[in-house]
């Protein structure tokens, strides 16, 4: 399997605060990685650097063969290949669910409206909300909105999917429907980097686990090893609190 994402000695500061310290990470095609760690540990910042929603100041990030830096000319092209799902869904409230899903395919990928709608309905069906296609985001439950956001990202037919705490803003009974959709996606062979505290999901889906603390990757291990015999004390403490 070939590398699709590579981070080398990445450092990032927010003013004086260092959010990422010497982060190294390699992700292969079709690999699923779950990142966990206490809040403020840099998990979100890390994945937001991968599609340059945040800028890193030092080190190299290479996505699908393209170095990402301030010199990158077609950052939009790279972003179009990296889907992202956010904690707060971030659907466009002025557009229907269907229009949310077709907007970028039509205007960024230049598909015709008909093509875009076909793809959109396919993806909405996949996350089981095709019956809500004509409603507006404000009319849907949180779980439905998050699945719509997932469908919207999938409509760009991305090579990589990033998830930034996709279930943290949801009621407990809605978490499952979103996780189910994500498990389904994982089984389809998508490359996924997921920031989440859902350890059940991690055990089921992840190839590798990453534990972050204070901007550093403290531990990276195969999922089984990570849960059964974590090496660092910090990881053990975290797992004992969360499990």
């Amino acid at each position, binding site marked *: 399997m070939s590398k699709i994402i590579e981070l080398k000695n990445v450092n990032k500061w927010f003013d004086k605060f260092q959010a990422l310290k010497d982060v190294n990470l390699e992700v292969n095609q079709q690999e699923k990685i779950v990142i966990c760690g206490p809040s403020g540990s840099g998990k979100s910042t890390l994945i937001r650097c991968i599609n340059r929603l945040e800028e890193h100041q030092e080190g190299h990030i290479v996505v699908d063969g393209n170095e990402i830096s301030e010199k990158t000319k077609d950052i939009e092209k790279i972003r179009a290949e990296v889907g992202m799902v956010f904690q707060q869904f971030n659907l466009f409230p*002025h557009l229907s669910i269907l229009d949310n899903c077709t907007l970028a395919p039509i205007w960024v990928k230049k598909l015709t409206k008909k093509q875009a709608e076909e793809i959109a309905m396919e993806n909405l069906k996949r996350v089981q909300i095709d019956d809500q296609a004509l409603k507006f985001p404000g009319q849907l439950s949180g779980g439905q909105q998050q699945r719509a956001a997932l469908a919207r990202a999938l409509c760009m037919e991305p090579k990589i999917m990033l998830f930034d705490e996709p279930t943290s803003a949801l009621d407990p009974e809605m978490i499952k429907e979103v996780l189910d959709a994500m498990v389904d996606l994982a089984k389809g062979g998508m490359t996924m980097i997921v920031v989440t505290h859902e350890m059940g999901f991690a055990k089921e889906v992840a190839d590798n686990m990453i534990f972050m603390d204070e901007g550093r990757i403290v531990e990276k291990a195969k999922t089984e090893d990570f849960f059964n015999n974590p090496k660092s004390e910090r990881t053990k403490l975290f797992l004992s609190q969360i499990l």
Partner: protein
Amino acid sequence: MIRIYKPNRDNLNTSLSIGLPIIALAFIDFFGNTFLNTNLTGFLPNSLSYFFPLIAGALGLYFIRIEYSGIRILDNFNKNVNSTTFNAVLTLLIIFIFFKYTPPLLNWLIFDADFVGSAKEDCTSGGACWVFVKVWFKRFMYGMYPNPEQWRINTAFFILFVLIGAAFFVPPKYKKYIILFMLFIYPIIGIKLISGGIFGLKWIETGAWGGLSLTLIVSAFALILCFPIGMFLALGRRSELPAIKYSSIGFIEIWRGVPLITVLFMSAVMFPMFLPDGTYMDKLMRVVIAITLFEAAYMAEVIRGGLQALPRGQYDAAKSLGMGYWRLHLLVILPQALKLVIPGIANTFLALVKDTPLIFVVGLLELAGMIGLAKTNPKWLGMAIEGYVFAGLVFWVICYAMSRYSQRLEKKLSTER
């Protein structure tokens, strides 16, 4: 007394039979004073007699303020207008003021007013002299535009209204074409029709334009132009490129800081000095540009307010889908931001329409300006009130229509549950 007697359900009948007659007395005294010129309470000291209806009314209302009386009308009345003594007094004041001042106003406006005739001398009955407005009506509408050519203005506006009507009623599929036509092609046709000089139409210089038609022309052009400029300024002010950012800030702050009347004066007097010799720019065009830039600065700040209200997540989501700066703003950010600030935009538009009379400083006379001119005509001295009441009504109708439309738009674009 208030402590001694507390009206409640138990003494319902007593309270009502005390309270209602006192209220009736208050109203009889008030109407006697107002309409019949009789003063029932003349035996009281002057000031007490003057305030008698208010005092008696409040007292009576106190007696009928009975909680859970079981009489539905009374309960509703007490809940809505008679809940406290303060509210009772306010209610009475509103009723009294309404009945005291409405009849004389109506008399002046309509019943005692003069409508027929052709000169100031025909106004004899003491009310408003609408003859003035009637005689000058064409001037108020068309300014000094020559009479035989006025059909051109009528046609231009007629086409405009047909287009607007069509935009409302045609199927949505064609609507955008009509709107595009109205915004980009029609203004040129309309202006050519009115100014002439082509197709054998007589050239009529802008100095002769005036009246309500000029109000509408100036407003319409300034409205259409100031909106996109304001939008770019708002985006510019939030730009990360210092050159664009600071020039936007500079532009906005300079134009917002100067009174419109100064700007208009400069556009007429100083601007031509900067033009190369031999070039000439029409006065009306200069005025429209001045108003446009002035209002664009306000518009920019209104729109910026909307931009700032949007959560960062919207930017993140659009970027993560591969949208660049323009797609992100045109497809995601601006539609939401503009929807949020419709009330503010309507506000700026209304202010713009009502600012147009200021173009009198450069010698252009729109509706209010024409009235200012007509009232100084020796044959029609002293007609200022009628004129300005008329102008006020016309402006109110225009502005109220715009206000209603903005509310309609707000409702239509709402995607809340």
